[in-house]
């Protein structure tokens, strides 16, 4: 019972992390900007929140602390994503290059700043683990009264956001404008849409949502090693986004399938059937990535992505 429930709580958390981050990436990519920096935005939001969690005195009431942490994660990741926006939209830089730079930068900043904040010279070099047990208890509630099983209530925020995002993308004026800037920016511009401003907003939203994903990811645990960044979850979310063909519902389903394999890699020792097979743990760790690659083979044939993805908008080419 406990194993089953904790497996479900892991699964739900992974689904939420991947869904919300991939949906964030969707805002950026639908507007025409490659979202390779999702990993960096997650890391940046997560470690900013982590530092606040470390420094916030326990005299601050739980509710207010949680609110502060959420705001910090969202805002910091949002601001960080603006670095991508400035470079790729205003200065027309290569978006893959900028994404890579931002991914490396956020991890390096996390390690340097965490070492600075915690002042732990005694730690081995390169170690930047932060412990936030108090916030683990704030963010993870004992939902069914079963000891040892906790649910992260940030999952509920994510579940509420999914339909809202669906409506914004498919039913609102802004959603249509966003897609038009990624499909055919010249015609969007000729109809009076400010392409660059729409793209800035798309990238900003992707940062905000990635920050939320990053916060959920680290608060699933009572501590996190920031030298590993977001442990590749940003890249996974990007893969989910691509094989879900940039569609909201598919993203949720894709994240679900993916999370099943990710959860297996974490909980397999406690499942007798899998533990008895005697297969190396590394096999289970690699499994989600292998599955992802296979799914990509079947879904990439048709070019369904935004047509102007990765191309800076040049008014002169209209």
């Amino acid at each position: 019972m406990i194993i089953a429930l904790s497996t479900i709580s892991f699964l739900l958390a992974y689904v939420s992390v991947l869904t919300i981050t991939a949906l964030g990436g969707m805002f950026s990519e639908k507007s025409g900007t490659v979202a390779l920096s999702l990993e960096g935005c997650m890391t940046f939001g997560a470690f900013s929140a982590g530092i606040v969690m470390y420094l916030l005195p326990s005299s601050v009431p739980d509710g207010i602390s949680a609110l502060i942490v959420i705001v910090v994660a969202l805002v910091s990741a949002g601001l960080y994503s603006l670095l991508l926006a400035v470079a790729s939209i205003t200065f027309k830089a290569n978006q893959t290059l900028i994404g890579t730079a931002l991914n490396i930068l956020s991890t390096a900043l996390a390690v340097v700043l965490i070492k600075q904040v915690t002042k732990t010279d005694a730690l081995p070099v390169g170690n930047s683990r932060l412990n936030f047990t108090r916030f683990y208890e704030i963010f993870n509630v004992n939902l069914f009264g079963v000891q040892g099983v906790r649910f992260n209530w940030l999952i509920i925020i994510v579940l509420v956001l999914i339909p809202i995002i669906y409506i914004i993308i498919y039913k609102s004026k802004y959603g249509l404008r966003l897609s038009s800037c990624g499909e055919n920016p010249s015609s969007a511009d000729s109809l009076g849409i400010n392409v660059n401003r729409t793209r800035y907003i798309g990238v900003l939203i992707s940062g905000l949502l990635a920050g939320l994903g990053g916060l959920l990811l680290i608060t699933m645990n009572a501590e996190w090693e920031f030298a590993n960044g977001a442990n590749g979850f940003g890249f996974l979310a990007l893969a989910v986004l691509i094989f879900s063909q940039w569609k909201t519902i598919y993203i949720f389903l894709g994240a679900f399938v993916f999370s099943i394999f990710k959860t297996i890699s974490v909980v397999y020792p406690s499942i007798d059937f899998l533990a008895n097979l005697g297969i190396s743990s590394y096999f289970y760790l690699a499994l989600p990535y292998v599955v992802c690659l296979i799914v990509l083979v079947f879904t990439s044939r048709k070019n369904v992505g935004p047509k102007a993805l990765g191309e800076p908008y040049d008014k002169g080419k209209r």
Partner: protein
Amino acid sequence: MNKVKMFFSSLLKKDATKTVVTSLWCALFGLVLGFIILLCINVNDAAYGMTSVLGNYLIFTNPSDRLNYFGQTLAKTAPLIAMSLSILVSYKAGLFNLGGSGQYSIAVLVISFLGVGLNLPWWLVMLLAMLAAASWAMISGALKAFFNVNEVISGIMLNWIALYLVNGILTNSPTIWDSAHSESYTITNSSNSFIPSIGLDRLFAGNPIVGLGMILILVVVIIIYILFKKTTVGYELKAIGLNGDAANYAGINKIKNILIATAISGALAGLSASLNLQNGFTSWRLSTTPPDIGFQGISSAFLGGLHPIGIIFSSYFIVHITEGGSMITDLGFSPEVASIMTSVIIYLSGFVAFFKDVMRRRELKDEFNKMSRDKEGKL
């Protein structure tokens, strides 16, 4: 006097000069930002920290120490040059190789088995490592060529798969794996698989990691330069990179060239692993993230202006400050400060095209003004 001025202004108009100038600006800006970060962390030691990062081996007073660490910096530059060339080759063919880390890991697996385990001759180990890495890279290439899978995302997925594959196999091979230190055994000086020093070590105070590898990488740089400058293969790769469909229409086989580009870039990533491990300097450490070198290669490839010769200098620069960065840990700084600097530099090198464009426009404007002034004079 006028001639000298003319010479300099014509030099400035050259595309290569513009690339060098903008790259230097990027590097300078990255360093300044790094210094500001050091100042924020610790005002008192920042200046000394920065001196260590910039000085690297120069901070040693003993000449033989200096030479020794200078040799070490040079020897560590060679693998980064190889990785940057790997990024360069695929980029010229219109592909972005983010899978360099995975290709490197697979080469490490081969080197560990054939080098540490079987003690085969160094050149054979190197060739087989390059072959293995090339095959791994071609998975990405084939997925791109036949199934239209985005090579960036498949490269990233293959990085993680390779990481777990190598971790899983090496940790279960007791003859190769040193479980006490959770890393694989290094290739020793006396092994057949050790890249020979051919006397170069004597120039660097007997540092054995300096050797044939450094000459080898210079030869490879020249080969890549000639490949793109003089050969049909290079021309076809560039054509595919500029406009794949147009090149295909003109009779250049797109699928074949994508496979060639990924194979060459994989082989170069494998060479990078070989140059890094077969001089006994390092080995495979148990890690939860793919090795950094694949991403470092991207920095130096772009900082070097995507030119084989430029890459030699940019790789040296990046290794120089990274090595310098590893010396400031005892001041209470993290070595990752160097990593902040390099990532800021890559970020800025994204702006290079934009600023080159600005410079070009200004020149055109000047020329136009001059022309109209001449015209007015005549009237």
